[in-house]
């Protein structure tokens, strides 16, 4: 590929690409992200390509493999453009019919269309699906047009135009001003004003500065950054280039965790492609600006998502946080001013430059502007990536986009912000989702994980789960995090196993405060949040565990017992055969009984029994 030496070359190349592509009559889009591949999209793609080769279609039909389209529940999906027809849960066996009828015959196969589980209606296009209706997809909308392995696709949809605009006509100072007035706040969780961060880094005196993209996403149930980086890596690189121009950096790093192989692969490929055509390197597009990006892989430590730990890890040392009395924008990587932003923050930059800060600030609430991607998971009907304007209520997200409860149990809480966030009860579902209101309610925005919980979830158990996670992931450098979180886990385990006392609850509260106040880094400072928020909103569950030795949700094994209801059991013997521990006794056609000494409360009998005859109490 040729190298571009002037900004007009890029525009010329775009025109050439559009000219080349104007004959394409229809496009088959098959999302192929990590989540899609887990849902067997590779087999579907293979089958479709084979069918196309076998049946022979018009040469102007193009097959396009892209990143995830967001609706992970219904994957693997196939989209058809023009017409925006969506097929859900496609299997390789459907390939023949799809190619034969839809591609060649322009006919819609009703059976593969999406059926809304709430209303029972089928939907043909994206606009008819409630999951997509309530969203405002600013960052995710590009995904379906861009093959992450092709820089041409990104340029064809108008990529790198913001960079050209910046290099041609906007001074670094104005870029910082623009980002500041857009009101963009860091999407990694802290919510620090990006513009202020850039301004500080810009004014810091140094011969060398760095911009870093934090793609070390590790919250359980969150995968927004993975999706963005593996679906549209050039968007991130463009954002980083604009940031580097603004603060005066010559070198950038994308720190991506090694557990995201596809993201690593796509990021590396994107960097190479950009370098090949002269968008990275010396004197980019003939300007005085030189910048290069390196992709660094993280070894999978959760704590390396913390800014100082990430930089220590980048320096090649053990990824442990450093004291942050001097900010990283002044002394960061190799003690040079460094701007560390999350993937999603970088992804927002090009559109702010293209459309202006006013456009960005017009979305969202007073303190939080723009859109935010959430990974909606848990006990809701529609799970997937959801991009909404800031200020949408939790109720809208869970019930309108998510489609409400899944297994017939009422929804009782939503956990936001991963291990650093908290659980918000149903009574708080009217809260607009933005940085400040979530923080006030005792949770936090976090990177965007959103786990919905129903009546079958024990909140003490949830707190225990997150403490266990944090105890495993704490680096162990400072006392409150290493010993304090361990002791908190000890207390919560006591509570879930029926040894808890009222004094321990008081101690847990006091310890939470100590850990939050005195820990070295953000991981420890926010570690008590899951405990504190569940204690704040679900105190009755804690007291039920401690005082009555009872688990209201029927989750904590030490506090529950299984019983067969005499009036419902008809003696079919299914549970008796299913029980791996031989704990169920009884004769055919007679009521069975569970021997408590042998029962390990695995729950297999409950799933096997067709008559709901087994009760947990």
């Amino acid at each position, binding site marked *: 590929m040729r190298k571009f030496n002037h900004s007009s070359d890029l525009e010329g190349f775009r025109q050439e690409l559009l000219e080349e592509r104007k004959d394409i009559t229809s496009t088959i889009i098959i999302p192929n992200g990590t989540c899609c591949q887990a849902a067997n999209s590779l087999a579907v793609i293979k089958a479709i390509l084979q069918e196309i080769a076998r049946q022979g279609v018009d040469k102007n039909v193009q097959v396009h493999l892209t990143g995830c389209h967001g609706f992970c529940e219904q994957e693997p999906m196939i989209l058809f453009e023009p017409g925006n027809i969506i097929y859900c849960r496609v299997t390789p066996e459907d390939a023949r019919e799809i190619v034969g009828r839809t591609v060649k015959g322009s006919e819609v196969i009703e059976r593969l269309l999406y059926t809304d589980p709430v209303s029972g209606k089928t939907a043909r296009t994206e606009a008819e699906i409630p999951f997509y209706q309530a969203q405002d997809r600013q960052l995710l909308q590009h995904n379906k047009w861009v093959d992450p392995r092709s820089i041409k696709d990104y340029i064809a949809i108008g990529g790198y135009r913001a960079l050209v605009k910046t290099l041609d006509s906007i001074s670094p100072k104005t870029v910082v001003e623009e980002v500041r007035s857009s009101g963009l706040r860091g999407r990694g969780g802290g919510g620090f004003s990006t513009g202020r961060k850039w301004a500080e880094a810009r004014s810091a005196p140094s011969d060398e500065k760095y911009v870093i993209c934090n793609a070390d996403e590790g919250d359980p149930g969150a995968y927004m950054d993975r999706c963005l980086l593996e679906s549209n890596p050039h968007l991130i690189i463009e954002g980083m280039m604009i940031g580097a121009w603004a603060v005066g950096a010559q070198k950038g790093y994308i720190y991506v965790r090694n557990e995201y192989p596809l993201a690593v692969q796509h990021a590396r490929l994107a960097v190479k492609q950009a370098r090949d055509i002269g968008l990275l390197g010396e004197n980019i597009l003939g300007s005085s600006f030189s910048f290069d990006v390196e992709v660094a892989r993280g070894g999978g430590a959760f704590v390396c998502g913390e800014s100082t730990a990430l930089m220590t890890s980048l320096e090649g040392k053990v990824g442990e946080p450093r004291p942050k*009395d001097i900010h990283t924008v002044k002394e960061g990587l190799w003690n040079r001013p460094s701007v560390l932003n999350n993937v999603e923050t970088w992804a927002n930059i090009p559109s702010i430059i293209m459309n202006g800060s006013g456009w960005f600030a017009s979305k969202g609430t007073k303190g939080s502007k723009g859109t935010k991607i959430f990974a909606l998971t848990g006990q809701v009907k529609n799970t997937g990536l959801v991009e909404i304007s800031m200020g949408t209520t939790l109720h809208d997200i869970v019930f309108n986009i998510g489609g409400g409860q899944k297994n017939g149990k009422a929804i009782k809480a939503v956990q936001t912000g991963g291990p650093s966030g908290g659980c918000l009860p149903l009574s708080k579902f009217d809260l607009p989702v933005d940085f400040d209101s979530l923080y006030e309610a005792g949770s936090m925005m976090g990177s965007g994980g959103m786990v919905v919980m129903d009546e079958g979830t024990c909140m003490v158990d949830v707190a225990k789960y997150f403490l266990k996670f944090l*105890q*495993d992931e*704490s680096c162990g450098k*400072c006392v409150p995090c290493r010993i304090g979180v361990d002791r908190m886990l*000890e207390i919560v385990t006591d509570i879930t196993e029926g040894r808890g006392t009222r004094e321990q609850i008081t101690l847990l509260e006091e310890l939470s405060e100590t850990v939050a106040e005195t820990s070295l880094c953000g991981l420890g400072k926010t570690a008590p949040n899951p405990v504190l928020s569940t204690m704040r909103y679900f105190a009755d569950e804690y007291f039920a565990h401690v005082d009555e030795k009872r688990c209201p949700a029927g989750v904590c094994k030490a506090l529950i017992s299984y019983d067969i209801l005499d009036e419902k059991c008809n003696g079919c013997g299914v549970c008796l055969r299913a029980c791996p521990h031989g704990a169920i006794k009884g004769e055919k056609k007679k009521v069975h009984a569970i021997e408590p000494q042998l029962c390990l409360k695995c729950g297999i009998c409950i799933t096997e029994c067709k008559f709901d005859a087994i009760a947990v109490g």
Partner: protein
Amino acid sequence: MIQTVTLTIDGVPVKAAKGASVLDAALEVGICIPHLCHVPFLQDTGACRICIVENVKNGSSRVTTSCTLTVQEGMNIQTNSEKIRKLRRNLAELLVAQAPNSKAIQDIAVRCGVKEVRYPFRNENCVQCGRCVRYCTEMWKANALGFVGRGKNRRVEFPFATRPDFCKNCGSCTLYCPMSITPCGGPMKRGEEHLCGKCESQAVTAPNIIGACTRCELGKGFSCTRHML
């Protein structure tokens, strides 16, 4: 000439050399901030968190370790507020519950006002203050000791768990280890751990002078900088 800055510690104006840590500045003028992982000639990492202070700025305060906090002109530091005393007590309680078999840790617990331990004792041999590792790395440049593992499994270890040739057998790691002296009553067996508390009379309890250094015996126990220099 040494450049100095003026800051306020516990309401007292203090002059300190530019670039010094708040902990050093306070100890210099006889304000007692208990500390464990700090050794005067080694780099501070802020691991034990015992030396926490409140950094008051524009009406709001931030809790941070004084060993890693560099003095700045006009700083306002509270080393002994109600909040700090409570947090420090909780931290010392965590430490003494983890490793009661050490005079240094027991003394710190007394100094920080721990009266009872509300956690089950664990009786471990290391609190991971990192003095040995830093001494070995920074003073002798031997790198014979290092931290291995993460979180609960983090521990001090030789490279690949065998003593390397470049360990000069100097013994500094043992010398600076706070765990090397057992409590006065002798080592505590498993199940018999308790708060020693014999030196309680040494602790300054009068509320108005609680932050003043009296060069107490407790300091010897946890190798307080004032006793080391």
